[in-house]
Each structure stands twice: as structure tokens, then as C-alpha cells.
């Protein structure tokens, strides 16, 4: 380019392979298009799957067959609705919350590596931004989510929203603890915060076999963090209309729904990467496909919970979290430490003490 | 034999009337009459399982206490008002069931339309709470001692006369 100075640098960046690849990742995969497609497919699948459990059919008419375009129709309908801000609401926080909730949930996707593939700037894997601490950053964004829910519920200035925000606070903050402790045992086993490293440590045997208790705790805690039945207390329709996002309509409502499905995506990917071997699998399917396949199976199992379980009550939920999950997670950590001390040959990649 | 018919005529023996004797019901009626001879104007067995007692309005609480504590009538089934404009009075009927004896007693009392006030029986049976509230709303009978005689079934802005009175005509009624 003939330009000089900052403009030259900027134009150099704009037309470099790095930027183009970043754009591709952010817009197509694993960014906007992927997440929209994922949300639509999962919404459609959830409705059809639950319908079959309920002995009915689900969406049928919209689309070429089996109501495939129903989520698109819903999306267009929701776009057409008026955005209503309650008169006593705190306008700034109220309007900011849906944007924040989508952004912060989506940030998790920025760090998840999607499997080894040739790439210009990333070290080995298809990831939007690589850092050796990607698991830590994903968890950080996971931990910020409850605050936005509380903020939105408070800003809505409606009784049902306030109660929903309270419930979201209790549930989401309480279940962070077993989540983090079970991840701690995985990190100890793999010896690193890097998801790439963790997946590679599972090349001989998946962590679900080495740490079944940890898997169980992480799975249940993740279902609680995602707000899926039987842990959907913050959204309990039958009691508090819709919980903390009660007052949202139109595109703000859609943002909240989208954030829920982004969380589901990130959660399933995490479960797969941490315990189910990530993208490892026989070579007749590319690794990315293995990753997505396994996390889709995890998503299906999470969705199934909605057809089978009634909702927990707050005190029963907290009871489960504190008296069952945290001790189990701690036991898992102790088991890992004990194995590291006395039988280190079992563990693939331990760099603990010794 | 249907439990509702008190008298069946014997077909083969003409002239012999076979009567089912309702011992327990008659006993209850007699017991009430014996205890309150001046307040009870009528105490009879209507059929098996049904006793009707008419009491003066100022003794109704005492009769009710007798029914509940000594005769075992503990289960309130209904409280209704009936409007008799030709006699210028309301009749309030309490139907109480006795679980042990399996008898229903209709405790009736009348209040005049000019002074429609009656002592509430909520001190005897808790369960008359909502029933008396509804009767008050629909007939305008004031139950003295009831803790909460507020709007129950009618809309909050109802300002016409109590609707179940005979002089309140519905718009769809033939005039």
C-alpha cells in the first residue's frame, strides 16, 4: 500500500490474512452464524424432541418438512414486537442488560478451541483468540453472568422480576462452587489451564473414566448454571411468570433467549472438552466434527431433563448443591491428590508435587 | 326400598302401613326440642338422614353449640339464605352433617327484613366463614361477630341492592 504511518499500518492489518481469518472466525464459525444456527437448530430440536416425549408432534407446518423453519418464523415475529420499557425501570441498566447478557455469554465462545486444523495465526487450533489460560477466562465469564441477571431483574422494577433476580442470584452463585471445584480436579489431572492441553491429556483415556464423580458433579452443576430443568427456578413460569426477564419483549427478549442457548452451547462444549475427550476420536471424521457431535449428544441429554423432571424448590436446590455436590467434588479432588501421591502411573500428565 | 321414602304401604296386607322408623333422627329432634322448648318452633324428621329444626334467632348460637358439642354435628355443609317477601323475612338455613351419625340437620332461623341481623355462628363452626360472607353479600343479612364481611363474589364496584333478593330483577327476566 502506498499510504504511510498509522493509516498504512491499519490498512496493512485490514488486508492481512490474520484479520481476514479473524473475521471469518467471528462471523461464521464459531461466531455469529454458528451460534445463530446452533440456537435455531437446538430450539427446533428441543421442541420436536420434547413433543415426542409428550406424545405430540411439535412444529409441523412452517418449512419444507417437520416445521424446520419454525425458529426462523419465531425470530421474525419477535423482531416485529414493540420494545416496552416499564415506566419505573432504571432505563440504562434495563436496556443494557440484554446486550450484556448476550455479549458475556458469547465471550466464552471466543476462547474455546475447536480442534486441530491448519490455521494462519492460531497456534494449532481453530480458535478466535488463543491464550494458554482459556479455561480460566471462560470460567470468569461464566461467573459474571449472574450479576447481569440480578441487574436486569432489579432494573425492571417489577415484583416478579425482583423475585426472579433473587432466585437467579441464589442458584447461580451457589452452584459456581461445585462447578469450580470439579474443574479444579480436571486441571490438576491435565496439568494446565489450557483446553488444548486438557483434551490432549485425554488421548489415552477420557477423563470421564478417570473421574466419574467429577463428571457427575460438573454435569449437574452445569445444568444448574444453565438454568435447565430441573434447575430452572429463575425462569419458573408457573410461579413468577418468567423470572428476571419478565418485562422484556421484542428483540430484548430474543437476546435473553439467545444468551440462554449460547450458554447451552458453551456448557456442552466445556463438558465435552473437559471429560469426553474433546475432538479426539477415530480419524474417519474430522476432529471438529467429533467435537460438535459429542457436544450435541450432551445437549440432547441436557434437554431431556426438561421432559422428565419437575422443578426443584429453592431450598431443595441449595440443599443438593451444598450437601451433596460440594462434598462429592471435594472427594474427587482428594482422590486425585491421593493418586498423584501414591500411584502416579495412572495419571497421564501430572505435574503435582512429589 | 329407597332410603328417601319414609312410608311404604304394604301391598299384600291391605291396611297395614309399614313405616321405617328413623330412631336416631327422631332422637336428635327430640333432644333439641327438649333442651330449648321455647326457642324451637319446629323440630322434625323429614326423612331418613334429614332433620329440620326451626329456631328463634336470638337462641340460634346456643342451639348450635348443643348440636356441635353434645349431638356430634361437626361438619358444615352449607349456609343459605332464602327470601320470603310475602312474610317480609329472610330465612337463614344452616345444613350441618354429623360424621358419626350420618345425619344432616337443617338449622333454620328467620330474621325480619326490616332488621336483617343475625348472630354469626362462626364462634361455633369455623367453616361457616365464607358461606356467611356470601349470604351477607347476596341478601344483605348482617352477621354480627363475623370477622370479615367484605366483598367476596360480587365485583368491587357493586352498588345496587343485594342481588339474591326477590325484588332484584335480572335484566333477562320476564317482567
Amino acid at each position, binding site marked *: 500500500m502506498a499510504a504511510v504511518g498509522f493509516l498504512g499500518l491499519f490498512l496493512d492489518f485490514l488486508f492481512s490474512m490474520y484479520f481476514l481469518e479473524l473475521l471469518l472466525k467471528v462471523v461464521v464459525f464459531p461466531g455469529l452464524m454458528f451460534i445463530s444456527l446452533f440456537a435455531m437448530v437446538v430450539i427446533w430440536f428441543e421442541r420436536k424432541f420434547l413433543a415426542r416425549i409428550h406424545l*405430540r408432534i411439535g412444529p409441523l407446518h412452517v418449512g419444507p418438512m417437520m416445521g424446520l423453519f419454525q425458529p426462523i418464523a419465531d425470530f421474525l415475529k419477535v423482531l416485529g414486537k414493540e420494545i416496552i420499557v416499564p415506566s419505573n425501570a432504571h432505563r440504562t441498566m434495563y436496556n443494557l442488560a440484554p446486550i450484556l447478557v448476550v455479549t458475556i455469554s458469547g465471550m466464552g465462545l471466543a476462547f474455546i478451541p475447536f480442534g486441530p486444523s491448519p490455521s494462519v495465526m492460531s497456534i494449532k487450533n481453530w480458535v478466535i483468540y488463543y491464550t494458554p489460560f482459556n479455561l480460566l477466562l471462560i470460567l470468569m465469564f461464566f461467573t459474571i453472568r449472574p450479576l447481569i441477571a440480578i441487574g436486569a431483574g432489579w432494573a425492571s422494577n417489577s415484583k416478579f422480576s425482583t*423475585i426472579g433476580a433473587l432466585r437467579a442470584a441464589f442458584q447461580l452463585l451457589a452452584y459456581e462452587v461445585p462447578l469450580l471445584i470439579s474443574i479444579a480436579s480436571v486441571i490438576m489431572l491435565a496439568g494446565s489451564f489450557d483446553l488444548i492441553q486438557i483434551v490432549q491429556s485425554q488421548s489415552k483415556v477420557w477423563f470421564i473414566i478417570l473421574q466419574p464423580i467429577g463428571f457427575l458433579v460438573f454435569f449437574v452443576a452445569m445444568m444448574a448454571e444453565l438454568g435447565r430443568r430441573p434447575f430452572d427456578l429463575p425462569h419458573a413460569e408457573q*410461579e413468577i411468570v418468567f423470572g428476571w426477564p419478565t418485562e422484556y419483549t421484542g428483540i430484548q427478549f430474543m437476546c435473553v433467549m439467545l444468551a440462554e442457548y449460547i450458554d447451552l452451547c458453551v456448557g456442552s462444549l466445556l463438558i465435552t472438552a473437559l471429560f469426553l475427550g474433546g475432538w479426539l476420536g477415530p480419524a474417519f471424521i474430522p476432529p471438529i466434527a467429533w467435537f460438535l457431535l459429542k457436544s450435541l449428544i450432551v445437549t440432547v441429554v441436557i434437554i431431556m431433563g426438561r421432559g422428565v423432571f419437575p422443578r426443584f424448590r429453592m431450598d431443595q436446590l441449595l440443599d443438593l448443591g451444598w450437601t451433596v455436590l460440594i462434598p462429592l467434588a471435594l472427594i474427587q479432588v482428594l482422590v486425585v491428590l491421593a493418586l498423584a501421591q501414591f500411584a502416579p502411573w495412572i495419571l497421564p500428565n501430572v505435574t503435582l508435587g512429589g | 326400598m329407597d332410603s328417601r321414602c319414609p312410608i311404604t304401604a304394604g301391598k299384600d296386607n291391605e291396611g297395614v302401613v309399614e313405616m321405617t322408623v328413623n330412631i336416631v333422627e327422631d332422637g336428635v329432634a327430640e333432644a333439641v326440642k327438649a333442651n330449648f322448648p321455647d326457642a324451637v318452633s319446629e323440630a322434625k324428621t323429614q326423612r331418613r338422614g334429614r332433620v329440620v329444626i326451626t329456631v328463634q334467632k336470638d337462641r340460634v348460637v346456643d342451639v348450635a353449640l348443643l348440636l356441635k358439642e353434645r349431638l356430634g354435628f361437626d361438619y358444615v355443609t352449607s349456609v343459605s339464605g332464602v327470601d320470603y317477601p310475602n312474610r317480609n323475612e329472610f330465612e337463614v338455613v344452616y345444613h350441618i352433617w354429623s360424621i358419626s351419625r350420618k345425619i344432616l340437620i*337443617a338449622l333454620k332461623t328467620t330474621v325480619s327484613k326490616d332488621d336483617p341481623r343475625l348472630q354469626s355462628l362462626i364462634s361455633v363452626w*369455623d367453616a361457616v366463614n365464607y358461606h356467611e360472607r356470601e349470604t351477607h353479600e347476596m341478601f344483605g343479612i348482617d352477621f354480627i361477630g363475623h370477622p370479615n364481611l367484605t366483598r367476596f363474589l360480587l365485583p368491587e364496584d357493586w352498588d345496587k341492592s343485594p342481588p339474591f333478593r326477590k325484588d332484584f330483577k335480572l335484566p333477562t327476566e320476564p317482567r
Partner: protein
Amino acid sequence: MKVRWGPQHPVSGQWSFFLDVDADVVVGMEPDVGYTHRGIEKVAENRTYIQDVPIVERACIFDAGNFVFGYVEAVEELMGIEVPERAKFIRVIVGEMSRIASHLYWLCLMSIAVGLETMLMWPVNDRELFLDLLEMLTGIRLTYSYFIPGGVRYDLPAGFREETERRMDYFERRLKDYYKMLYLNRTFQMRTKDVGVLKQADAIRMSVVGPNLRGSGVKIDVRKDEPYAAYDQIDFTVPTESEGDTYARSLVRFHEMEQSIFIIREALKKIPSGQIRVNVSPSVPKGEVYSRVESARGELGYYIVSDGGNKPYRLKMSAPSFRSLLSLPQIMRGVPMADVPTLYMSLDLIPLDVDR
């Protein structure tokens, strides 16, 4: 904080509660009824006795059979007539089908109250079995106005017995599925055991009716205490549980459905042939009557005063939900807000028959 758990709410039904909530705990509750008050008792005074059959039925649509049952029993007692045996058995069959349909609807409401949508869809689907049978018999699915003073309107059609047997067999298998899906579901048990306990003495004191009473250990059933129609010729049991919590009440309703299947089968076996209706005169002799029947929700009482004409002088319905309503503020005191729909649905209160 005062919350109006109000009519604009996914699960509240056609009324609202004024809840006094402290953090997540309900400290007081006041029901706000009257949204569906239609003045049925007043309207009934201006219709003839036979015109009142559809009026009275609308007091509670889900259990239309039993609501009219009580009414015709009362009118027949006033008239002093007795319906033919065949009509009595047909009335029992329709009453029990109505009871099953009402309990299935209750099952839907109870399940969404605890948050299990599957048990909303299954019973409402299986309710079609009985609504189809009723349509085959009467022509209408919900408000069939089938009983009239003097008997029933139509006889059993050809093929009714076989069709009913087929559907009963299928429904029995479905009941086993319901038991596994809901009653053996650990989460449902956690939500309903020891929740909303209604003690026996309180139940009698507040004159709660029906499965609410039988769930607290009081074995009262009008079909056994004062048998009407053909109930004295069928030997069925009355399910009772003693704990008085939500799970007990739910279990009582489940077993009542099983008993209803048994009663329908027995009635179909024992039904005699003959007339289905006797002629009655339009005017009813002077007198008063109080008739009681066991509807799905509990005991239903009709107090009819007749002045000798062809219209009732006073028709008073003592509706089951109205009577059970008194216990709701008491059992709701001190429960977390998540239990509000659970307790409300466990008493099976339908605003329609509270308001009439």
C-alpha cells in the same frame, strides 16, 4: 412485600391471591374470588326445572356429569319419584367417566404446578378417551346436559359397551405409566411430600371436602355414606391416605381413578334392561330438599326450595371448591413462594365452582 398472584399469570386460573411475601416466604394469603361469578343460583330461579339442567352444569364444566347428578337427585326427591334401574346405572357410568375426566384435568394442572410438562400432555391426551365416549353417548363432549329429572335422555348406543371396555383397558395401562412418571419420580416426591400438610382435625373443622379430606385420613364419601343411584349395588373401595400432605391427596385422586374404572366395569356388567326415563310433570310439589353427591372435587350439595310451581323458589349449590377454599390460607402460611401453585393445585380448586 405484597404480591398479587393475579389473574394475569400463567397458572393462577380465573382468580387471584393477595400474597404477603417476605423474601421468598409467604406469610399471609387472601383469595380474591368472583371473577367468574355468574349468579347461577339467581338465574336458576327464572328457569323451569328442566331448563335449569344446562344452567347448573355450567357451574363447573370439567365435572359436568356429577354437578347435574346432584341436581336431578334433588328434583326427583322433591317430586317423590324413582328413576328406572337402567337409568341409575347409566347415571353411575356417566358420573364416573366425568370423575375420571376431571381428575385427569387435575393431573395436568398439578404437573405444571410442579413444573413437569410431560404429565400435562399425557393426561389431557387420555382425557380424549372419555370425552369421545361421552360424545358417542350424548353427542357433546363437555357439557352434555344428559341427566334430566326422571332419567336420562338417550340410551346406550350400539357398540358402546365394547368401545368402553377397549378404552378402559388402554387407560389402565396408561395409569401405570402415570404412576411411574409422576408418583415414583423422586423430584415430584421431594416437591410434594410433607408439603401443605392438612391435619385431620383441621380438615373437619374447616369442612374440607373430597380427596382433600380423604388425604388427611377422614374416610367420608357420599357414595358410601348416603348411597344414591346404583352405588349401593357396586362394591368399591374408597381410597384414603393418612398423611395429609400434597402427595397423599394426589395419591387419593390417582386411586380414585382406578376405582372409577372398576365401577364403570361393574356397572356395565350389572346394568339391567328397561326404561331409561319416566314421565314427570313440569311442576314440582311444595317442599325442601338437600341432596348430596360426590363430585370429583368433593361433596356437592343442592338445597332446593320449591313453592309448588315449575321453577325453583331457591336453588343453593354448596360447591366443593368453595368449601375447600377455606383451608388454603391456612396451609399456605409459611411456605416458600415456589409452593404456592403446588398447594393451590393440590386442593383441586376450580374458580368456576367457587364463584358459580
